[in-house]
Each structure stands twice: as C-alpha cells, then as structure tokens.
C-alpha cells in the first residue's frame, strides 16, 4: 500500500516579531528581536522582567471583531487570527471542501488564568494559613466569569477553529510542553496519511506571559535574566547564555493530501515528509546527557522521510538558550549527522522570537517553509562568544543565502517528550 503524501498549503502566525507570515519572515531575516520589558502585566518585581510579547496585534480589537470569543485569552485570540490567515492562504472557501474531511490538531497551551479574580477569591478565603475551601467556593461563585473560566481549557481554541471553518473531522489537541505544536503537526500529518482526513488545520497557541506562568518558570531558574538588555537576552549557543526568554503567540498550517491539493490547483508551499517522536525516559527536569531522546527523534524523522541525513540542508534548532539544551542538542545533531553536521546550517530563531512554548514548533515549521521558499536561512542572533561545546554552524547574527530543499525542525519538551519534523521542497512530482 502506498502511503498518502501530504503537502503544506496554508500558513499563518502571530508572533512577537510580527503578525502574519511575511512580517515574521522579514523580521527573522533582519535579525530583529521581539524581546521587551513585559508590559501585559507589571512584572517589575520578578527576577525576570522581560519576555517576547506580541505587540503588533490589538488583542481587544480582535476580540470585539469576534463576539463568539469575547472572553478568550490571548492564546485563543492568537489562535484564531493565525488560523484565519492560514486558511485564507490555502485558498479553500466554504463549499469547496467536505467538512467531514477537514480536521484540526493543535498543540494548545493551557489558557490564561483570570488572575485578579482568582487572587481575590484566594485572599478572601485565607484563614489561619490555609485557604478555607467553603469560603473559596462562595467567593469564586461571586467573582469568576463563566466564559473566562471555560476559555482556559486547552481544547477550546481547537473548538473555535472547528466552528469557524466548519471542520467536522478528527479534532485533537496535545500539550507536550515545548514540543506540543510540532507534535500536533506530526500527528496531523499521520491523520492525513492514514486517510482519517484530507485536510488538517494544525499548529499551536500559547501565552504564559501572566503572573503565575512567569513565577513557575522563574522558580525553575529556566529564564534568562538580562532585564536591561532585552533584545540581547536570548542567545542560543553563545557562551553567555543563561536561560530562555518566555514568549507567546500562535502558528497555524494547513496540511492537505497531495492529490486533493493538486485537484483544486492549490499553491503548494512544501511537502511534509518526516515525523519522529521519542521520550528521554530519563529525568523530569534534565534532558539525557547524551541526548538519547533527541538522537532518537531525529533518527526516526529521517527514516520516516526516507532520506539520508546528508540530504538535510537546514535545521531549525530547538535552541532555547539554556546551558543544557544547546549543548545536548549540538551533541545529538553531531551523533545523527556525523561528518555532515558542521556543514548543515542550524539556527535558533528563538534568539529573536523567544520561546513560544506550545506554539514554538509551529512558528518554527513556518520558518522552515520560508527557508525553502526563499533559499535564505535566518540567523541565530546574539551569538557573539562561541561556546567551545557548541561548535556547529549556527548562522551567527546574519541571515545567509543558502539553497534549502530539505529542512528539519527540532522541538524538545520539558519532561522529555521530543519531536523532529522534516519537510521538502515541492517540485511538482
């Protein structure tokens, strides 16, 4: 049985460096940072006061345009805006497709907590050093807003997108931390390959730029702390790297079965050819020292794609700017690609976008598609002091012309869930 082939026919995004694919791409090629002093709430008293915020989207105005999601969190608004761009880009109109063959698979982060009412409920119920549950119930019944609570469920963005585009097929979402939207893309690819749908809207959305999210990551000592130099704070593979920069946003792609896309004369951006998923099965808080899981998922993706490692022309690294990730990822790439490793440009666009957590992989997949379309690889910015343990070609600081036919994207989730994806230039056969 020949496997169904799957192509990318639509893309859309909301990112800290730009809203819309062309703005994202221009910013990445120009090396522009999206890292700023956090303004969505007063973060001045946290150890990390910077983040990669979506600034080019009037979130309230977008909510007003869509009364059906007037209480959605930032994550939900990002998701629908990106999905609308992606679906418009793929050129499908209502009536052109069978709704039962259109599905959705998102890497969807938990929604944004309704922080101040939640805090008031807790404070109001705080007695003798514990929260009195009965008092909390009465407080919360008064203060919580039904829809703002429901919108925090991770399956809500996928539900909204399905309603918007009448997508009645398979609808799934996953939350595997930083790997989520890459995993969603891989699983959506498998849904189409397996003939469970002909078209899938896939991607991710997330915003943890809220007081509880920032607290959680600060406590894990995972975040960069260069509060006075936001644009230089995310510096993957640089000797001075000291943590990732928390970002927010959404990336969405439309995956379509090849013959379905051809039959309607769709514009094909690239072909999705490889998906690999693995687990470190090591420790909750550290990646395996030898990058066991990272090696495995890259190897599986290469096998799935039916290519040789040396065929890969560009790697979009997970490259978080943490001490451990960047060293281990480098090691793993060397183990997988051997002698070819130093010749393959591998950049971390998180140096500019920050880390979009569940949404990161989808935005990085869009970036991979753009490298193929433009034959340009975006840089790793802020790479000024090389780390001897990170000795690959990270495309330091300046975008570069480079022929890219095959691109790989890596995403490694906190907790040890790892994903690699491979796409290839579509040449018409």
């Amino acid at each position: 049985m020949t496997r169904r082939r799957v192509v990318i026919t639509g893309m859309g995004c909301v990112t800290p460096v730009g809203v819309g694919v062309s703005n994202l791409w221009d910013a990445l090629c120009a090396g522009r940072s999206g890292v700023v002093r956090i303004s969505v709430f007063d973060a001045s008293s946290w150890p990390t006061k910077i983040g990669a915020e979506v600034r080019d989207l009037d979130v309230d105005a977008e909510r007003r345009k869509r009364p059906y999601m007037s209480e959605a969190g930032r994550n939900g608004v990002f998701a629908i805006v990106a999905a609308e761009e992606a679906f418009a880009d793929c050129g499908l109109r209502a009536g052109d497709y069978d709704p039962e063959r259109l599905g959705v698979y998102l890497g969807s982060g938990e929604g944004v907590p309704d922080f101040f009412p939640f805090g008031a409920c807790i404070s109001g119920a705080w007695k003798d050093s514990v929260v009195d549950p009965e008092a909390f119930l009465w407080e919360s019944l008064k203060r919580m807003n039904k829809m703002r609570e429901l919108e925090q469920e991770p399956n809500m963005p996928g539900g909204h997108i399905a309603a918007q585009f009448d997508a009645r097929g398979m609808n799934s979402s996953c939350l595997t931390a930083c790997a989520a939207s890459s995993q969603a893309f891989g699983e959506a690819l498998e849904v189409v390959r397996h003939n469970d749908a002909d078209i899938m809207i896939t991607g991710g959305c997330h915003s943890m730029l809220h007081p509880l999210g920032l607290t959680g990551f600060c406590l894990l000592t995972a975040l960069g702390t260069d509060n006075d130099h936001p644009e230089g704070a995310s510096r993957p593979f640089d000797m001075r790297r000291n943590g990732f920069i928390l970002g927010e946003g959404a990336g969405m792609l439309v995956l379509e079965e090849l013959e379905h896309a051809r039959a309607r004369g769709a514009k094909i951006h690239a072909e999705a050819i490889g998906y690999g998923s693995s687990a470190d099965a090591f420790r909750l808080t550290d990646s395996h020292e030898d990058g066991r899981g990272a090696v495995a998922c890259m190897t599986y993706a290469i096998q799935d794609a039916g290519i040789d490692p040396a065929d890969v022309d560009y790697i979009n690294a997970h490259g978080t700017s943490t001490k451990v990730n960047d060293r281990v990822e480098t090691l793993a790439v060397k183990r997988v690609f051997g002698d070819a490793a130093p010749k393959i440009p591998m950049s971390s666009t998180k140096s500019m976008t920050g880390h979009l957590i569940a949404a990161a992989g989808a935005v990085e997949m869009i970036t991979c598609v753009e490298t193929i379309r433009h034959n340009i690889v975006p840089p790793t910015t802020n790479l000024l002091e090389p780390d001897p343990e990170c000795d690959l070609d990270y495309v330091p600081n300046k975008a570069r012309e480079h022929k890219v036919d095959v691109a790989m994207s890596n995403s490694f989730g906190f907790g040890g869930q790892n994903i690699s994806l491979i796409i290839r230039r579509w040449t018409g056969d």
Partner: protein
Amino acid sequence: MDRRIVITGMGVFSPVGIGVDTYWQSLVSGTSGVRPITRFQVGDFALKMVAEVPEFKPRDYIPKEQRKSLKVMSWDVKLGVAAAMSAVEDARIIVEGKRVDPTRLGISFGAGNMMTDLDEVGSSFAAATREGSEVDLCVFGPAAMQGFFPLWLLKYLPNMPACHVSIFCGAEGPSNSVTTGDAASLQALGEGCRAIERGAADVMICGGVDAKIHPVCLTRYMLMGATTTTDTKPEEMSRPFEKSRDGFVPGEGAAAVVIEEHEHAKARGATILAEIRGFGGGCDAYAPEKIEPEGRGTRQALQNALRDATLDAGDVDAVFACANGSVEGDRAESRAIAAVFGDGPDAVPVTSTRSMIGYISAAGGLLDVVAAVRAIADATIPPTINYDEPDPECSVNVVGNTALKKELRNVMVSSGGFGGQHAAILVSGYRE
C-alpha cells in the same frame, strides 16, 4: 486498522473501585459511587455530591528508587500514574528478563488542565492583597518566588502522567499527551493504535486521568449550571437518559490499557484480553461551549470508527455511551447513536456507566474501554442505573437498572462533548 492491535493489560482507579475486578463487579451490580464530598469542606454549597476515588497509597505504584517523584505529583498525576503502572504490571511488559524493547514502547495519555493546590499559593496571594483592593503585583512577585515551591509548575502540567510513566518504565518510544477534554482518553488510545499501525512502536501504554473535584472546578460547574441539583439520595443523582435528569455529578478517576501489535503479543506469550478494531474522531464544529443538538460530532466519530474497523452498524452488539445526565447532551448523543445504529426496543443496547461513576471528562472513555473488555469476556452489559422513566427524546435502547446477559462480539465506546471533540473506539473479542 492497518495492523491487528490487542489489549494485554488494564488498570483502573474509579469511584466504584480500584482494580479492574472490583470496578467491574460494581458496574455489573449497579453500584453507585456518588457520595457526599470528603476531600474538603463545602458547608452549604449547593454542589456537595461527587464520585470520589477511594483512598489509596500512590507510593505502592511507583518504583522504590523513584518515590521522591511523589513530591512533584498533583493528585491528578498520582491517579494517572497509578492506573498506568497497574496496566503495565498486568501486561508484564517490564518484568525483569522479559522487558519489551524500550525504544519500541511508547505512551499516549489523555489529561486536562490540573488545578493548583490552593494552600500552596494561598500565602502569596494573601500577602499581596489588602482588604478591598486587588492583588498588588509588586508584592505578589517576591511573595510567590518565596512562597511557591521550586518545582510548582511541574506538578500540574498535563504532560506529567506520560513523562513520569516513561521514566518509571524506561519507555523511549513515541510519547504524547492529549488534551481534548471529554474525548481525550479515547483519542489518546486511538492515536496510540495509529502509532503501532504505522510501525512507530510495538507496545503503547494508553491512559486517561481526570480529577476535577477541586474548588475551582466545582465553581465552574455551578457557573455553567451543568451539575444536577436534584434533592435525592446521592446514589440516585446521576440519571443518564432518564426523563427527570437535570445535570451530571462530578466524578474523578483514571484508567489505562497496554496495547500491543498482535504478533508481538503472541511472540512474548502475553495474555490477550481483547482486540481494538476501530478508531474514529469527529467534531461538532459548533460554538464549543454549547451542545450541538444532533450530535453530529458523535455521529461522525462512530461512523469513522466503523469504517476503520470495516464493520457495519449491525455488527455492533453494545454501545457504551458517555451520557452523563445533561439534558441536552444526552439527547444529542442519543440522536447520534440512533442515526448510526437505530433506536427503539430492538436496537443495539446502549448503556452509560456515568450513572454510577459520574462525569469523568478526560478519563471516562478509557474507563468504558476497560468495562467493554470485561463486558465481552463475561457476556454482560452493565446497567444504566436510575433509569426510572425513559426520556422519549432519548430513544435509544437503554440497558436500564439491571445488567443484560448477551454474547458480545463488538462493542462501541463513545466519548466527547464539551469543546466539540468526539472520539469512538471499537473493541472486539479476541480470536486467534
């Protein structure tokens, strides 16, 4: 299914019993797990009847050298891990000397948002709030950095059941955490099947957990007006498909199964409990907070599962529905089942275990898969209890109040709802 996939291990933590045998006996005898809440004091709050999992010692299910992990596990994670490790034990896949290839062992787990323990964050909010004003962020930041414990964030991430289990079992294969609300655990199982079908793994640990007996969740249910307010005995409160129903009873629980490629299971001499023949998904594509009246997402999922199994509706001998006592939800599901399988007294028997275990969103589907496996083995469909007067708008053939003896070849399990996501799994008796 492109390859034959069999179930070789099961684990259950339910409000009507821990362990597959206890759970099954309770279901067949029509035992309700609904009781007054014990986990915390609710006083006069209207929602006070729930279906809680009995006390157990999570440490008994965790390898000795890993027990320090308990400190970073929320109650939800403990339940999920315990169910998964029970299924792993039952399937004997990590027995010394007979361990399955770790790189071919994967995990697919259904879970949802997990709520923070309120006491863990309480002092920081209290310190940052002055009477009559909102939280002062300039005080909250430093207070939270002091007051929350360092790994706080990790304790509540929905991917943690899968991550802990992968570490405990050395499972290095594909790993996913599915978060589609009421459909999550069936979807996790279906996607686990797909991973084996495409050759990415030989064995998958598939589970689901949901534990929303938490003050925040109880308030949400009250705000939605989704829970029953009937003033009857607790065990009579959950009334799927019944005319006087007016909402669900919140439950909690976890279930897991080990699934395996057929030849792999035979080669290692595994005990084969059942076969999974089909998986299908569907979506209402409707305002996600509302109920689509025709149940089109359910219908789509049921039809896709039949197509995947290459079976006809007539081949299915029982349907495990997810009807939980919601007035509109039960009607929508009934309409979808009727559209695919027919209705009236001669149609396929339909049952809802939610009448006994309550509404257990992300775990409900897999709890029913475990029940379906036992139903096939014992040729018995457990009853839908409290089925006093049929609702004419729920016209399916409900197995009311007493278990039904019947030979079962193929059983359909349906789960979905809030958010619009639906999934269905077709379980069949195993034949060589």
